């Protein structure tokens, strides 16, 4: 089987209250990726548009974006798996290229969350769970992850301070990422003394809502070698699902969809957790990063706290994680997030991550989750 490579990456700055329309927001990430790949719109053979649809009045956004980005008459369509939409878009692009349908495909993610109020946003995000049996009790995303935090703390002795340490790390890197929405440092004291949102999670345990776009240009092996001096190869792809309702779950100390996706991705890539040089994990909440350490095998179940206490997930540690600030500080514009994570790892493997660079990184991993562990996507990238 041929290899499939990433030959261009881009993202807009992640901001609060983007002063423009979704088409202009998407243009920013797309144009940066196209400059990176040195391509023109007519070189893109198909586009996959990824977002969560409840934020915009625009119906069928793929049609709008293809027109605005100069991608007619090539095929375009929409992929949705809430927060992991653009990782799922990458999976579809990979499949189309392996099938021989297309050789160069653009995966474009976006979200303008500020189109609606924060309370409306919480209500819509809460409806990314079971609306028939759970939403009538007044659920929202922080509460679902908070229940996982409570279970993790009770089972393994993880503390609120351990979670706060994850935020301190995220903020230390968010400060040096010029695309991040939250660029201030956060001390342990500040994180621990922030207001409770849904116990035991506090304001600083939660990622920042943001507006943003991302774009990944994916190519066949032949085209990647022809077009790019530094292609980054897709070594492994894993995807899995788990029950949307909490009553259907078998555990609250981890996400089974992430474990299953990781197993598939490691197997396909022929590598293990010890081989990963740098990782991007879906830290929509601090507890989500803690669970990711364990679900990805960076630590044994219950030992994730040792990684953060010993700073092993900082640059220079055993396995640097989210050294671009993560969702916590970089921001989490739902549909753009997976693409942004893939961009970060691609830049790392090209040695172009600037102050966030992990020296000599050869193999990187992206862990992107949709909803409260409904959809798990793990992607492993490598360079020549």
């Amino acid at each position, binding site marked *: 089987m041929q290899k499939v490579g990433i030959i261009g990456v881009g993202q807009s700055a992640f901001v609060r209250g983007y002063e423009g329309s979704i088409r202009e927001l998407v243009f920013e990430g797309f144009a940066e990726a196209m400059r990176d790949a040195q391509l023109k719109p007519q070189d893109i053979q198909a586009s996959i548009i990824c977002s969560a649809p409840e934020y915009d009045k625009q119906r069928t956004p793929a049609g709008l974006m293809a027109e605005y980005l100069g991608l007619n008459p090539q095929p375009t369509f929409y992929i949705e798996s809430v927060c992991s939409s653009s990782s799922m878009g990458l999976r579809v692009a990979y499949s189309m290229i392996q099938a021989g349908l297309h050789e160069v495909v653009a995966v474009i993610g976006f979200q303008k969350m500020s189109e609606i109020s924060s*309370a*409306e946003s*919480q*209500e819509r995000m*809460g*409806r990314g769970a079971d*609306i*028939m*049996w*759970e*939403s*009538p*009790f*007044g*659920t*929202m995303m*922080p*509460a679902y992850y*908070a*229940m*996982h*935090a*409570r*279970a993790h703390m*009770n089972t393994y002795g993880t503390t609120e301070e351990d979670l706060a340490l994850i935020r301190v790390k995220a903020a230390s890197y968010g400060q040096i990422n010029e695309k991040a929405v939250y660029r201030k440092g956060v001390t342990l004291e500040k994180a621990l003394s922030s*207001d*409770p*949102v*849904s*116990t*035991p*999670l506090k304001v600083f345990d939660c990622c920042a809502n943001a507006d943003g776009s991302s774009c990944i240009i994916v190519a066949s092996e032949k085209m990647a070698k022809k077009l790019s001096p530094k292609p980054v190869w897709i070594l492994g792809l894993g995807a899995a699902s788990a029950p949307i*309702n*909490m*009553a*259907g*779950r078998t555990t*609250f100390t981890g996400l089974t969809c992430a474990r299953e996706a990781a197993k598939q991705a490691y197997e396909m890539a022929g590598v293990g957790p010890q081989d990963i040089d740098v990782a991007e994990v879906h830290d929509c909440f601090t507890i989500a990063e803690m669970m990711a350490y364990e679900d990805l095998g960076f630590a044994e179940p219950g030992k994730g706290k040792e990684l953060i206490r010993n700073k092993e997930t900082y640059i220079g540690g055993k396995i640097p994680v989210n050294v671009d600030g993560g969702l916590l500080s970089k921001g989490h514009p739902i549909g753009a997030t997976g693409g942004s994570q893939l961009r970060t790892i691609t830049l790392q493997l090209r040695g172009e991550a600037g102050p966030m660079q992990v020296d000599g990184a050869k193999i990187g991993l992206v862990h992107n989750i949709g909803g409260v562990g409904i959809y798990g996507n793990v992607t492993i990238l490598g360079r020549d």
Partner: protein
Amino acid sequence: MGFDRFGTVSFVSQSKVDKFVDFLDEGKVMGTKCKSCGAKYFPPRNDCAQCLSSDVEWFELTGTGKLATYSKLMYAPSGFEKDLPYRICVVEYPDGVKAFGRISAAISDDDLAIGMDLVAVPIKLSGNQVAYEFRRP
């Protein structure tokens, strides 16, 4: 009226298991059991995901479950602000059935502990809405 009477705000107007709401009126919290393969479901379902039969019967969620996990919300989504603060939870029953819901305000935060015994009790809310909550046995 159908399923729109369930909870503070319902997001589903009707379902083939609407009768769940009528049972709450009668003081019962009910799940469904597949008559073909015996799979038990809570929340109730009209259709069995194990054997794909749609021949199901009701059973009452009786007995004591254990608190699996919970969280106290200090912020609420649109439509739930008046209920704040409230605690949501998952309760696990001995036969493996799990139930999602709220913990009764009669139990203080300090008395909450994972593993504690709880029972599901139907309750009436304002505006003719109904639900269930978890209380001490």
